[in-house]
């Protein structure tokens, strides 16, 4: 694997999160009935950051949850390595709420489909919106994001890696190429 380009650095990730938080509060006219749910693993940390920004903008706390979609994936039997099952933590009722799902990279759309299936098992939200840090294209399902940090046209040979302080010790988005 060879690093081809750095797409976002620490500052630009921070600015992107602030912008997405503003867009979410604007579109939903505030935080009434709003909840933010991050898709494990990195989506959960991004969701925390978005929720913290929304709290600063609107001066009201927003419900925050974490969704593990391992048990809803349609490719469990195709993956070579063992999928680790992690906890889902949504300790509030999502029925009649506006849920914003947060993930790091939007690619084929299969992760988001699994997340939608999982969420609907928890209740009947008024709406589900999608926020992603990076949209790299190559959709295999009819899914699009409502809030996009950055659109990055990629080839399928490339991989978009999102590194976050909480997991990787640094904030950056890079494109790496298979050699």
């Amino acid at each position: 694997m060879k690093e081809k380009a750095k797409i976002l650095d620490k500052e630009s990730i921070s600015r992107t999160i602030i912008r997405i938080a503003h867009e979410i509060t604007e579109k939903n006219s505030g935080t009434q009935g709003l909840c933010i749910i991050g898709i494990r693993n990195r989506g959960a940390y991004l969701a925390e950051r978005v929720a913290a920004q929304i709290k600063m903008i609107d001066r009201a706390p927003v419900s925050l949850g974490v969704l593990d979609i391992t048990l809803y994936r349609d490719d469990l039997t195709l993956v070579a390595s063992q999928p680790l099952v992690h906890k889902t933590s949504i300790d509030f009722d999502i029925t009649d709420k506006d849920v914003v799902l947060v993930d790091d990279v939007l690619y084929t759309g299969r992760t988001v489909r699994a997340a939608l299936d999982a969420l609907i098992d928890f209740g009947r939200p008024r709406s589900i919106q999608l926020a992603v840090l990076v949209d790299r294209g190559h959709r295999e399902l009819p899914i699009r994001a409502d809030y996009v940090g950055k659109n990055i046209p990629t080839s399928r040979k490339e991989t978009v890696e999102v590194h976050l302080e909480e997991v990787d010790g640094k904030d950056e988005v890079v494109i790496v190429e298979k050699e």
Partner: protein
Amino acid sequence: MVWTKKDLLGLEYLSREEIELILSTADSFKEVSTREIKKVPALRGKTVVNLFYEPSTRTRVSFEVAAKRLSADVINIATETSSVRKGETLIDTGKNIQALNADIIVMRHNCSGAAHMLARSLDISVVNGGDGWHEHPTQALLDIFTLKEKLGRIEGLNVSIVGDIAHSRVARSNIWGLTKLGGNVTVCAPKMLIPDGIEKMGVKITNNIESALKNADAVNVLRMQFERDEKDAFPKQLEYFREFGITKERLNKSAKKIIVMHPGPINRGIEMSSDVADGDNSVILEQVTNGIAVRMAVLFLVAQANERRKNETVD
């Protein structure tokens, strides 16, 4: 850590890492049972067959609930009402179930080693739901899971197992599992119910209940299997309770709050008094709840491993 085993037959042959993987997977599965819709699609389209050669309520129901919470289809076979009565062999029964394209057999059998024999003969997964006096791995895993949940660790814990050690598959599996995770195990029973050579499994032995409880963090109380010897059972039961029964008075003598476990069904007034069974030391019903999460984890892991194995064969 990747789970690679097609089957779960016992804890004797598992590594510490494999046991820890089951426990951490179970920890994640526990949340599923608290949801309004207590179901995830992880084993959708899979078939689990509960093949029980011995009567059982809680183990069979627990496996059935676990499989259904993973969206698997479940078939229960009680051998008293099956073709086994016509003389069908275990292997033939297993091969017929495999020919139905089932994916996992959960088997309870009165012969030690039966699950191993079945697993060797089949390509589909076999989960041991208790074989003779040998092992009852999922019961031990749920005991260990409950202990870890209550006390935060297994390493360095003092666990006493009290009761019919000689005939107990629960005791054997617990000893394998607890000692592999760094726990200190003491077994306590009348001399005739302690098998020769058990100290080779790395346990201490005592015939004195006070000494078994003295430094214990937890006591796992086994069911007295008086059905094996009905004659003169009544005086023996009273005598057993007097010598080995877990009572409030005995628990109160310990400096620590001892966790009381029992694999069920309890003989109240024989293995323990009712106020202990229902008291705040008891985690017996929590064990039942945790059993579902542990069995979901086991079914999930063996199904995934077998699926990966099949894909590798095709490639």
